[in-house]
C-alpha cells in the first residue's frame, strides 16, 4: 500500500511535467498533496499517536486543499491559464523527467537507509519529486508554474520525512508546515504585486537586474 501511494506520487509528478495548463498544475499539486497526506497517515499507522495524526491531517488539508485554494484565485486574477512557449515544453519535460527518474533510482541505490523497515522506493521518489520540481521551475515561465514546482520539491522532502521516520518532534513538523503555509501566502501576494507592477507574470521577462 505504501509503495502504491509512492508510485502514485511519482505519477502525479509526471503528470505535472506533462501539462502546460496552470489550472491542471494546481489541481495535480493538490492531488499530490492528498496522496502525501494519506501516505503520512498510512506509513505511520502502526506508531500513530495524537500528535503524529494531527501532523498528517494538517498536511493533508494544507497540501491537498488549502494551497490549491489559495493559488487558484491568483491564476484567475492575473488572467493566466496556459504556459505559452515555455523553455522546455511538456513533451521535453516529460522526457527529461524520465532521465531524472533514472538518476534518482541510481542515487537511491547509493543511499542506504538504516533500519530496512521502510519502502525502498522512498528515496528515489523523493529525489524524483525534487528533480521534477526543479524541472518545473527551470523550464516554465509563468510565476505560478514555478510556485507549483517549489511545492513539488517540498512535497518530495515531506515524502522522505514521513516515509522514513515514524516520529518526528511535533514542533519541528508543525513549524515546517507553518513555514510552508506562510511561504505560499507570500507567493500569492507577491504574484499579485508582480501582476500589478508589470501586467504579466512571465518571469523570463524579469531581466532588468543583471551583471
Amino acid at each position, binding site marked *: 500500500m505504501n509503495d502504491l501511494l509512492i508510485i502514485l506520487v511519482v505519477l502525479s509528478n509526471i503528470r505535472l511535467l506533462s501539462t502546460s495548463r496552470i489550472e491542471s498544475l494546481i489541481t495535480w499539486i493538490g492531488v499530490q498533496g492528498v496522496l502525501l497526506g494519506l501516505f503520512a497517515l498510512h506509513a505511520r499507522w502502526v506508531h500513530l499517536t495524537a500528535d503524529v495524526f494531527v501532523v498528517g491531517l494538517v498536511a493533508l488539508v494544507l497540501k491537498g486543499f488549502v494551497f490549491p485554494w489559495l493559488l487558484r484565485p491568483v491564476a484567475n486574477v492575473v488572467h493566466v491559464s496556459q504556459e505559452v512557449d515555455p523553455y522546455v515544453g511538456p513533451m521535453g519535460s516529460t522526457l527529461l523527467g524520465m532521465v531524472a527518474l533514472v538518476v534518482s533510482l541510481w*542515487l537511491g541505490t*547509493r*543511499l*542506504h*537507509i*538504516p*533500519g530496512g523497515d521502510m519502502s525502498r522506493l522512498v528515496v528515489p521518489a*523523493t529525489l524524483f519529486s*525534487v528533480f521534477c*520540481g*526543479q524541472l518545473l*521551475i527551470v523550464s516554465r515561465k509563468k*510565476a505560478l508554474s*514555478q510556485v507549483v514546482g*517549489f511545492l513539488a*520539491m*517540498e512535497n*518530495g*522532502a515531506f515524502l*522522505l*520525512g514521513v516515509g*522514513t*521516520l*515514524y*516520529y*518526528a*518532534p511535533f*514542533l*519541528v513538523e508543525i*513549524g*515546517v508546515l*507553518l*513555514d510552508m503555509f*506562510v*511561504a505560499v501566502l*507570500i*507567493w500569492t501576494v*507577491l504574484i499579485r*504585486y*508582480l501582476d500589478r*507592477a*508589470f501586467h504579466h507574470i512571465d*518571469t523570463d521577462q*524579469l531581466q*532588468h*537586474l543583471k*551583471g
Partner: protein
Amino acid sequence: MEHGWLLASLVVVPVLAGLLSQVFTSREAELETAVGGVLVTAGLGALAIGKVFSAGPLFGFSRWLFLDALSAYHLAVMLVVFTLSSLFALRYFGEEVREGRLTLAQVRTFAGLWPPALGAMVLVVVSNNLGIMWVGMEATTLVTSFLICVHMTRGSLEAMWKYMLICSVGIGFAFLGTLMIRVAAKDLPLDPNQALLWTNLLANTGALAPSLVKAAFLFVLVGYGTKAGLAPLHTWLPDAHSKAPAPVSAVFSGFMLNTALYCVLRYVPLVEGATGHTGWALRLLTGFGLFSILVAAAFILWQHDLKRLLAYHSVEHLGIIALGFGLGGLGTFAALFHTFNHSLCKTLSFFAAGRLGQVYGTHDMERMGGSCTVAPVWGIGLLGSLLALIGMAPFCLFMSELQILKAAVDGGNYAVVALFLAGTGAVFLGALGHALPLALGKPSPAVVPAPAGGLDVLLVAGPLVVLLLLGVWMPGPCRGVLEQAAAIVQHGSAVLPGGGR
C-alpha cells in the same frame, strides 16, 4: 532551565516588538519601537553571550535551545550588525520620513518585519535542534523578503521574486539534507524528540551512515550555500542587496549570509566525524570558497552599480570565509575572525552607499564621483570600508586574510594559494579602480552637499576605528573567544564535556 527563557526571550522579544510597532500611527514611533526592540534584544543577547564565555554553554527547553561558543560568537556579530543597522535605519528612513517620501504603510511594513527578522536569525543560532534551525532559516527568508520591497518599485519586486524563488529552492534542499541526517541517525538509540539535536548527533557521529551523511551534507551545503551566497548559487544576492533599502542590505550582507554559513558549519563536524575525518567536507568548502572569490572578482571588475559592487564583495568574502573553514587549522580561526571583520566592514559600506545614494539620487558609480567632497563623513566611510574590503593593511581584514593564506601555505596547498591571491588581487584592482573616483573624483555640480550629524559621525567612525584597531591589536579575550569557537568547528567536542544542565 533558567537559561531557556533567556534564550527564548531573544526570539520572542523582537517578535513582540514587531507586533507592538503595528499599533502606532506615527511613523517615528513605529521606527523607534522597532529599534527599541532590537536594542532590548541586544542587551539580553549580551547577557547571554557573557554567560557563555564566562561559564560555558547555555541550554534550555530539553536542550532544544543552546548557546555555545560558536553560536554565541555568531550571535554577538549579529547583534552588533543589527544594532548598528537599526541606528542607521533611524537615520536613513528618518530622512525619507522627513521628506515625506515614505508612507505610513511602508514604515509599518519595515517596523513590523525588522525586529522579527532578528528574531528569526536568533532562532537559527540558538537552536540545538537542526530542524528548528531550518525552520528559523526559512522564517528568515520569509520575513526578510518583504523588507526588500519597502520601497515598492519594479526593481525591488523583481529582486524579491528572485530572492524568494532561489532561496526557497535552496532552503528546500537544506530541508532535505536535514531530513537525511535525521534518517542517517535512525538506528541510534535516541529519544525521537532528541534525535535531531546537534549535540546528540555529534556524540554519535561514528554510528551515522556515511553515504547518507555525505548526501545530506551535499544537500545542506547547496541549500544553505544558496542562502549564504556561495557561487554559483549566489545569483539572487546582487539583486536583493542592490534593491533593498540600505539598512536591510547591511543586515543581509552583514549577517544573514553568515547565518546560512553558520548552519553549514554545524554540519561540518558531523560529516567529518561520520566520514572518518578525511577532510571530505572541508574540500567542498574550499572549492566553493575559491570559486566564489574568482566569480566575484569577475563581476567586481565590470560593475557599475555601487550596491551591486558591495554585493559581489559579499560573495567574495563569504568565499574567503568558506575557504578558511575549508582549510581548517588556523584557517578556521581566521575564517571566524574574518566573519566579524567582514560583517562590520560591509555594514559600514552599505550605510555609506545607502546614504550617498540618497544624496546623489543614484547608485551608478559613474555619477557618484567625489563623495568625499559632497558628503565627507560618508565619503570617508565608503572609501575606508572599501579599502578594508579589498584587504588593505592595517585593517583587520588584511590580518584575517593573511591568516587564511597562512593556513593554505602551511597545508602546502599551493594551487589554493595561487588562486586565492589571483582572485583577491583581481578584486583589489577592480574595486580600487571604482573606489578612487568614487571618493575623490569631481562631483557633478548638480549634487547638493549633504551635512552630517553626530549620529553619522558615530556610525562611520565607530566601525572604522574598530576595524583599524583589530588590525593591529587583538585583545586576549577576543582571541580566546575565536579559539573556543574554532575548536567547535574543528572538533565539535569542545562543547560536550562542559555541556549539560
